[in-house]
């Protein structure tokens, strides 16, 4: 399905939220995050890799995540990211806000659906 255009219009900040969620499962590198997104959304959510890295830089500057170089299982060097305490708190808050938003929109959209 050529829905990649539609899917890519992630609302600003949603990518950040998803990245934080990914990292909440454990520290990983940038590639690992793209794999997580791909796998757990059955390929529906696709983000351009460079966009992910830009988001990582942004969040790192706000101290929501911190980074250091490490070694992968395949003996490669990779830059690993990890949530900070602030990041964890931000994830909780932002996820909650997003959930409320999604619920409100769903409710509004489901009005008058009986007649469809």
């Amino acid at each position: 399905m050529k829905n990649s255009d539609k899917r890519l219009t992630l609302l600003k900040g949603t990518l950040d939220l998803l990245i934080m969620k990914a990292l909440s499962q454990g520290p990983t590198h940038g590639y690992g995050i793209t794999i997580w997104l791909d796998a757990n959304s059955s390929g529906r959510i696709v983000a351009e890799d460079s966009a992910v890295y830009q988001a990582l830089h942004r969040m790192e500057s706000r101290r929501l995540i911190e980074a250091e170089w490490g070694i992968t299982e395949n003996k490669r060097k990779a830059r690993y990211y990890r949530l900070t305490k602030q990041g964890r708190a931000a994830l909780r808050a932002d996820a909650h806000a997003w959930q409320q938003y999604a619920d409100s929109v769903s409710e509004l959209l489901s009005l008058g659906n009986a007649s469809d």
Partner: protein
Amino acid sequence: MSWLDRLSLRPRRRRREVDAEVEAHLEMRVHQLTEAGMDEAAARREALRRFGNLDTARQRLYASAKRRDQRLRRASRLEAVGSDLRSGLRRLRREPAAAALSVATFALGIGLTTATFSVVDHALLRPLPFSEPQELVRLHSVASDGASFPWVSATNWLDWSEQSRTLESSAIYSVFGTATVVTTDDAFTVPAKSVSGRFFEVLRTPMVAGRPLTPDEVRDGATVAVVSEGFWRRVLNADPELAATVTISGRPTRIVGVVRAGFEFPAGTQVWLPARYQRRGGAARNNINWLTVARLAPGTDIGAARAELSVIADGIRNSDPAGIYSYGVGVFSLKEEIVGDSQQTLLLAMGCVLAVLLVSCANLAGLEFSRRSARAHETALRVALGASRWRVVQHGILEQVALAMIGGALGTTIAWWGTGALLARYPLPVPRAGTVSMDLRVLAFALGVSVAAGVIAAVLPSLAEARTMPWRALANARGAVRGGRNLPGALLVGVEIAVAVVLLIAGGLLARSFTTLVGRDLGFSAAGVVTAAVALTAPRYRDAPEAQMAYWHAAIEGLDAIPGVVATAVANPIPTGSGGRGFVAIEELPDVDAGADYRVVSHDYFDTLEISLLAGRLFGPSDGAGSERVTIISRTMAEAYWPEANPVGKRIQATSQESRLGTPWLLVVGVVEDIRQYGFANDPATAMYVLHEQVPTHLGAMTLLVRTSGEMASVIGVVRDRIRLLDGELAVDVRSLDARLGGRVASERLLTTTLGLFAALGLALAGIGVYGLLSFAVSQRTREIAVRMAIGARATDVVTMIVRNALLVVAAGLAAGLALAYGFSGLIEALLFDVSARDPFTFLAVAVTVLVAGVAAALIPALRAASRLPLDALRQG
């Protein structure tokens, strides 16, 4: 690696890191794809596709990485500042004595500076609290010879303001004024001004209750008044309805408005009454009795106003040539007029207090030098382990800034409380002294000064600390500051001494000037004279010259009867009081426009004040109400208009002052010595004296004078009682003449005292600095001294050596200070009386004082060092 190198390497390293991360990502994806079965080339293509356009992506990532690094660096720097400040506070607990000394020194310096600034801020920077103060101006009368006076005549002002477009509004108010307020239990005088209708409109004075006077009320001469907030609270119990009627100057007056505190104009006024003036052409244009305040119309400036008003003045001059003061109109910024003389004084005070602060910072810096060399070991370790030298400097400075801010907070609090209390007791002769308070500007200033003081006190020691050579410090456990001579410390002390010298010279010059000033011959003898000023404001005296005359007679008789009284008189004005000055016509010199101070006195005036007679005679029993009009003139007047002849027997007229009496010819019967009417600072002017009995139109308000051999305080009390008994409805102001004179030199006395205090403080601090420097130097060279003594040096040799080193520093500082004082002597010139700003006596005295103090401060550690046994010293070293 220097910071410059690091700076240029940063972008390259960052880019390499970004590239490495991107490469790693691509490799991992290629690996995964090839594991899933793709061939290498296709996998690579797919990986690149998934990534996005590599080149643009790379650029964007370089940019976002740069932003990230900048933000992180900024955040960590702020954190470092925070932690350094906290470590400064920790030091307070670890070394309470040293920290307490620092805090106390900062508190003193910053507190004094803030207090001075709060006064300067109000007096110099914002002396007019009204809205748009830059629009407010004052009008001057300019005479035909170009001389400009800040006073105007009512008629001229009416013409100017009616014809002017550049002045949006203007008003006049009386120059002098008090009003007598009579309540049920008391009668007292308050400073009061008569004002024209738009006075409050010009200033846009905010009111707390009621409303301002209206032009109609002024025109009709209504018995209404506006009062100050202080008056309202004290006398009217802050009644918001303003229901009460108060007797002011003999009239029951309705209070219609209350001016908000801090907005009294002129400062100190408590009651504003409707002014009474008339438009009268001709010579009346020369009765310049009023001060003005005007507001420029929006869009115009002073230049435009001046131009317009000169045209108007020309018009007046052409239509009414008798007006000598109508030749021109001067327009000046009101703020500058108000600030006037205080400016130099205040700036001098500010400069001195900053100098004292500088000296105390220098002292603390010196202290820090010794402290930090003691912990050089620790610092060296830190540097060796990788701490950047800049961090060391920053840490050192912030430590001191933390202490400075604590000291500053303490000092400002004390200053806040102290300044208020001090000003209440000793009002300063500067604008708005009554409303000085610690507002936001002053607090911001205090904060800024605290930070600056901390930085100044720490910068040199911190830089020195950062240059510590790690290996040297680690090897030699004690003292690793570069060089044994401690040049920076000596430099600091030298600067301190120079500053102290400048302060001492300024203080000394002012002290000499002050003593010269109050030692001047006044022309009369003030000691033992009590004055009682009375204004006959009760209704029974209005337009009743006989009643007025009878009062003064009764008063003189009553006071004469007091035991111990030697002579009594009444006069207006008395010395230190202000009186009228007018034109004088001289019979034999019809073309001369003479002028003289006009003084109304009783027979015994000259005896009471011990003013000498130079020619002719004084007023005697033959002079009285019905007899020939006589006058006595002053020396200056005699010399001015009769340089060769004897003025006795000549005739003059007081054309300005006696027009209502028909301007009769007065016979000059005597010449008396000049007096300094306005206090020590002013020179005598031409003056004429008339007998009070002969001028019934001038008896409304006068001052009684009593010369007594008794004890002043008790006589003052008796005088007050007797006057109050004569007529309870009149208020009387009783003071010794000496007290009035003292009031005249209040600002000079204040300046001299303040500067003297600062100078003493500066010297004390510099002395401490010398002591500290020497102590440190001695402790550094303990081994050397011990060795010297062991091989045979005598104690005196050691002492001499140490003191000689100290003297070098003291002498250098002294020379620098003397040169500075000599070079900047012009700055203080204007404040001195009869003393040159380069007075050699003062310079010499200060030089000797500083040398002696320096030697004394150096002797203590020197003697201590010499008294130690060599073995002890060696063991310790």
